[in-house]
C-alpha cells in the first residue's frame, strides 16, 4: 500500500503544480514509512520538503498555502501525533470556507498512519477517526487496500475541502487479517493489491461491498475489513462486509440497503468504544433500519483504555472476538 500512496501523490503532483508535500522526514528521506520516497528528487525541494517537528506548524502553514491557492498534502508521522495540530484542523481548516462564505478555502490533505498491530504502544497505535468525524467541514477517509488508497488519495488531493486520510499502518505491507502469528502475505497476492498506472480516482463517500452475505452486515473500514473477512470465513457465517472507505461523507444508502437485507448489523473498529465512530454507525443504523433489525446493532472495538504495548493482541479486535459477536448477533 506504501507504493500505491506514493504513486498517488506523485500522480497528483504531476497533474497539478499546486500540489506540495511536506512533513517530518518526508523530504530527503522520504518519510519514516517511505510513503514520499523519491518525490523530492522528482519534483524538487520546492514541492517536497522536510518540516520542523511541529504538527501545528505543518497544518497551519498548509492552511495558509491552501488559502494562497496551493493544494498541500501533508504528513503527520503517526495519527497519535496529530493533536498539536487539532486546533488548526478544527478551528481553521474545517471552518474557513464557511466563515468566509467561500472567499477563502482550505483544500488540503492531512495524511497519517493509523491503527495498531505493530507493537507500537499507546503512541503509535491510535485510531482517532471519531475526533474528525464530529467536526463539520472535514472529510475523513480510511482506505483498506492499495487500489482504494491510490484512488481515494488522488480524489482527496483534488477535493476542494480539507480531507483527513487515515492510513492503516498495519496494511502498509500486506493485508492483515488479525492473525499476528501467521506470515505476512504481500499485497501482490491480493486482488486489490493491483494498482493501475496513472490517474484514477475512487470517489469520496462511496462504500464498497467486500463480501456479499445474507445473515448479518458487518460495517468496517481499514484493517478491520480484513479482520472481518477472516472472521466470516472462520465462523462460516454468511456475513456481508461493507468497507466504508469514507466516514464523512458516509454512504448511508449502501449501509441501509445491506442491513435491510440482512436484518442484523455488527460494527467493528480499532478505536476505543465510547464515542467511537461505531456509535454513529449504530445510531444511524437503528434510526434508519429500525423495523428491519432483528437484533441490536453490536459494536466490536478497542477497549476504553489507552492502547497497551505487550497486550496488543488482547486489545486488538481480532477475528476471534469479532467472530464471537457475529455468532451472538445471529442468536439474538
Amino acid at each position: 500500500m506504501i507504493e500505491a500512496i506514493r504513486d498517488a501523490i506523485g500522480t497528483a503532483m504531476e497533474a497539478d503544480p499546486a500540489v506540495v508535500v511536506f512533513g517530518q522526514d518526508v523530504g530527503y528521506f522520504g518519510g519514516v514509512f517511505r510513503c514520499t520516497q523519491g518525490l523530492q528528487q522528482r519534483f524538487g525541494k520546492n514541492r517536497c520538503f522536510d518540516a520542523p517537528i511541529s504538527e501545528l506548524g505543518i497544518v497551519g502553514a498548509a492552511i495558509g498555502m491552501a488559502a494562497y491557492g496551493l493544494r498541500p498534502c501533508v504528513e503527520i508521522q503517526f495519527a497519535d501525533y496529530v493533536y498539536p495540530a487539532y486546533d488548526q484542523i478544527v478551528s481553521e481548516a474545517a471552518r474557513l470556507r464557511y466563515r468566509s462564505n467561500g472567499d477563502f478555502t482550505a483544500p488540503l490533505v492531512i495524511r497519517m498512519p493509523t491503527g495498531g498491530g505493530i507493537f507500537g504502544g499507546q503512541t503509535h497505535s491510535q485510531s482517532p477517526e471519531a475526533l474528525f468525524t464530529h467536526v463539520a467541514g472535514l472529510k475523513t477517509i480510511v482506505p483498506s487496500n492499495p487500489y482504494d488508497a491510490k484512488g481515494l488519495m488522488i480524489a482527496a488531493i483534488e477535493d476542494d475541502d480539507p480531507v483527513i486520510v487515515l492510513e492503516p499502518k498495519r496494511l502498509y505491507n500486506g493485508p492483515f487479517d488479525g492473525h499476528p502469528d501467521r506470515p505476512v502475505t504481500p499485497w501482490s497476492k491480493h486482488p486489490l493489491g493491483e494498482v493501475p498506472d496513472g490517474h484514477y480516482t475512487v470517489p469520496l463517500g462511496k462504500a464498497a461491498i467486500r463480501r456479499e452475505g445474507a445473515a448479518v452486515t458487518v460495517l468496517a473500514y481499514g484493517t478491520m475489513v480484513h479482520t472481518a473477512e477472516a472472521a466470516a470465513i472462520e465462523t462460516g457465517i454468511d456475513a456481508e462486509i461493507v468497507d466504508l472507505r469514507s466516514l464523512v461523507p458516509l454512504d448511508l444508502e449502501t449501509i441501509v440497503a445491506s442491513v435491510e437485507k440482512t436484518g442484523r448489523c455488527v460494527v467493528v473498529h480499532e478505536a476505543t468504544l465510547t464515542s467511537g465512530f461505531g456509535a454513529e454507525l449504530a445510531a444511524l443504523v437503528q434510526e434508519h433500519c429500525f423495523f428491519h433489525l432483528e437484533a441490536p446493532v453490536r459494536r466490536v472495538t478497542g477497549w476504553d483504555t489507552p492502547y497497551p504495548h505487550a497486550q496488543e493482541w488482547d486489545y486488538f479486535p481480532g477475528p476471534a472476538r469479532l467472530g464471537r459477536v457475529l455468532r451472538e448477533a445471529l442468536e439474538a
Partner: protein
Amino acid sequence: MSGAGEEGRLSLTVPEPHVRPGDQPDFSDLVVPPAGSVRRPPVDADPQDIRDLAYTIITVLDGEGRAHGPWAGALDDEALREGLRHMMVLRAFDARMQMAQRQGKTSFYMQNLGEEAVACAFRTALRPGDMNFPTYRQAGLLVAGGYPLVEMMNQIFSNESDPLKGRQLPIFYSSKSHGFFSISGNLGTQFIQAVGWAMASAIMNDTKIAAGWIGDGATAESDFHAAMVFASTYHAPVVLNIVNNQWAISTFQGIARGEAATFAARGHGFGIAALRVDGNDYLAVHAVASWAAERARRNLGPTLIEYVTYRAGAHSTSDDPSAYRPRVESEAWPLGDPIARLKQHLIARGAWSPERHVQAEAEVLETVIEAQREAETHGTLHAGGKPSARDIFENVYAQMPPHLKRQRQDAGV
C-alpha cells in the same frame, strides 16, 4: 524576586501591573528615546547586527509634531492627509458601531480606539495581491485599503447583504480581494497561516508577500512559536506584526511577556530581524512597515515588528476596563493619540489646519452615517433583512453532502 540570592524556600512570582483602579497611572517603565534617534539599517541587514532595534522604540514625530531622523520623510502631504482621513474614518466608524451595538443593532463590537495608526499606516506599505492575516483589531487595513464601509457594516449587522451570510461574529470580516484574510475567533491561529501563505508565494516564485498580525497577549499561543520557527526555517517573505497595546482583556502585557524586555526580542532566538516601533506614530509605523515589506519582497526573509501602543477603549462591548485598570490610564499614555499626533504634524508642516480638521471631522462623520444609513436598509441583527436559515447549511463543503441535505430538509428550510 522574593527569596532571591539565598537557598531556602522557593516562592512563586506572579507579575502584576504597577497600578490598579484607583492608583495613579505609571508608565515609568516605558523608555522612549528621542524622536529620530534610532538608526535605520539597510533592508538587507543581518538580523544579528540589528538586535538593538528590538530593545528601543523607533519614533519619528516629536512632542511638537515635527518629524526627525532616518525613518522620516517617505510620505508627502497628500499621503499623510489620506492617512489622517483613514484614521478619522476608523474612529468615527468605531464610535457609530459601538453605539449601534448599544442600540441592539448587533450583538457585539470591538473598537480600534487609540491603535488606528498601526493598521492604517501598515496598509499603505502593501501592494495589491499581498495578504494580511489580521486579528479583530486591524479594521484599519480595510478602511485604508478602500474596502466599502457599507460592506463592513452589513457584516456587523448580519443583515441580508452581509457578505458572510450572518455566519460570523460582528467585525470578523473577510475579503480576499482586499488582501484581508478571514478573521478567526481563535487567537493566534492566523500567524502561522501567514507564514504558510508567504511560503506558497515563494514556492510559486510569485512576488506577493504576507503579513501576520497578533496581539501582545496572544504571543503566548503556540501558533506564535510555529510561525517563528517556520518563518525562520524557510526564510519566508512575511512581516510578522505584534500589536502590543499593553492589555489582553484584563491582563497586562507582563503576563505574556514575562521577564523579557520586549516582545520584539522574541525574534532573536530565531535569527529573525526584529524592530520595535512607536505604534501611535503614523510616520514611524509606515516607515518600519515599508522597510520590512521591502525586505520580504527582496527575499531577504521575515521581519518581526512590535508596535507599542495602547488599547484606549474597552476590550469589547462585553468588557469594562475600569474593573482592572485606572480609568485615566489612557490619558497618561506617553505615546499620545495617533490622530492628534498626525494632525499636529500636518499642521506643523503647513499642510493642515485646525479648521480643516473640524471640517474633515464633519465630513468623515457624514460619510460614516451615510454608510450606516445604507447598511441599515438591508437590516440589522434583529430587524429588517436577514440572511437565510438555508445559509446555515451552505459552504460547509464545496458541495453539500447527503447528510447535510437531509438535515436542511429536517430544518424545513
